[in-house]
């Protein structure tokens, strides 16, 4: 399995011979290119065109985050897997409102089912979550009758709001209280964690899309604007509860992430450098963790699971097999 490289320090990243070379004030480091699948750049890193050419050749995607840990953008090299047929199919399922709605609904259903699994897990551990579970249950009734993607987004938003309020019961930690969802910037620590977790998951999904024939610009639940990536946002919905949110629970409940890992930023709160490092390390562990996959009859990691989900979407698009979102069994 290829590795993800996270760069937090400041320095220069360049090509040296046939390998990546990172130089900082403190030292130098070689990054073997055959073992690298993607780069996350958090520090102030200088790059040049020669490096971008090398990354393209090596099929490595590079994500950039700014000083506050906000996603800036990705260097998405020229597609290495190209199928005009798949792009046409993807566009067909976007342009036909009924086909688009089918897929969009599946993403929301997957998200909601996985949310319910997470809540059920904590309910079994004695957390008082009945109220939230019931509310989510009743809101999700309207999913089937929903006629457009805006409606689906609204239902999902309402469910997620209930779900986030349930975090207060799950975490039961005075330093991490929900108080409503706030973004750009997040107003409190829990919101900062949620935002950061989601943005990492979005980029991981984007990296996986890069290794398929799908075009990341054509999403189904999230409206495409033909410029920004949106398919990764769709797929991430299914995995937020079981990957991103579970990392948050682990970090807070085990006391690994603490108030000192955050900093005030103008009108909000963001994770500081140490906090981002701690988060990213745990997230990476989670993505590498494996479990038995029934269809394949062997163990797969959560990262591979995202890739498999993309294959399922491809199969849906080419009319091979109807897409059924992954729903965790624990």
């Amino acid at each position, binding site marked *: 399995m*290829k590795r993800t490289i996270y760069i937090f320090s400041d320095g220069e990243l360049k090509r040296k011979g046939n390998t990546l070379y990172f130089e900082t004030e403190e030292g130098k480091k070689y990054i073997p290119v055959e073992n690298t699948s993607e780069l996350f750049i958090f520090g102030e890193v200088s790059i040049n065109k020669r490096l971008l050419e090398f990354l393209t050749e090596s099929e490595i995607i590079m994500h950039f985050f700014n000083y506050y840990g906000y996603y800036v953008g990705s260097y998405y090299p020229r597609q*290495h*897997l*190209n*199928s*005009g*047929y*798949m792009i046409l199919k993807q566009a067909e399922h976007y342009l036909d409102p009924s086909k688009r709605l089918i897929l969009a609904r599946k993403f929301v259903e997957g998200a909601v089912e996985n949310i319910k699994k997470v809540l059920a897990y904590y309910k079994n551990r004695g957390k008082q979550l009945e109220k939230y579970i019931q509310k989510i249950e009743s809101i999700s009734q309207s999913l089937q009758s929903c006629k457009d993607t805006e409606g689906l987004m609204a239902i999902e938003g309402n469910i997620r709001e209930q779900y986030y309020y349930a975090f207060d019961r799950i975490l039961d930690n005075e330093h991490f209280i929900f108080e409503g969802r706030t973004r750009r910037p997040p107003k409190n620590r829990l919101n900062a964690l949620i935002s950061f977790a989601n943005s990492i998951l979005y980029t991981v999904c984007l990296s996986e899309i890069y*290794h398929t*024939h799908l075009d990341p610009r054509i999403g189904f639940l999230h409206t495409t604007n033909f410029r920004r990536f949106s398919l990764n946002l769709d797929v991430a919905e299914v995995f937020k509860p079981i990957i991103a949110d579970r990392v948050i629970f682990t970090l807070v409940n085990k006391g690994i992430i603490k108030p000192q890992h955050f900093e005030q930023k103008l009108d909000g709160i963001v994770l500081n450098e140490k906090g981002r490092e701690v988060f990213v390390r745990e997230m990476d562990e989670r993505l590498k963790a494996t479990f038995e996959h029934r*269809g*394949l*009859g062997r163990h797969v990691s959560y990262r*591979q699971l995202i*890739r*498999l*989900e993309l*294959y*399922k979407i*491809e*199969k849906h698009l*080419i*009319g*091979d097999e109807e897409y059924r979102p992954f729903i965790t069994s624990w």
Partner: protein
Amino acid sequence: MVNSMHPTGTLIWYYYICPREVWLMSRQLTPWQENPFIEIGRLLSEEAYKRERKEIHLENIVIDLLKTEGENVVIGEVKKSSRFEKSARMQLAFYLWRLKQLGIEATGQLLFPKEKKKIIVTLTKELKAELIEAQAQIKEIIKMEIPPQAQKTKFCSKCGYQEFCWS
């Protein structure tokens, strides 16, 4: 139609392994390139028989190796394992047939460098009939609107499409 694909040697090869693979390849839905077996295959065809190597491109066929043994023209096809002997034999027979149409009489050798094994293939009437049938079948498969259903075979476990088919 998707593209007016003439059955190529590679499609003949895939046909004898899995019809679904033929369909997917015809749409450029190439498999995951990180699959270790694909890597080995690629390295092998780049590295084995380097001295004799002359990759020949003839219209839409690519011949790994071409040499003369006395009067005879010999073409070789390099493969990783004889597990796919049927596929390899038919692919090579297809090349022999194409050469014959171009006026070149040749014999074929299947080369399995890792197994130090060599199999001679000559174009017989039976093989030719089988190839004609296979080509017709391939055309039918490519014409299909949706891919042939996935079916578990002994080839699945090492196939680049494994994760695609069984996800």
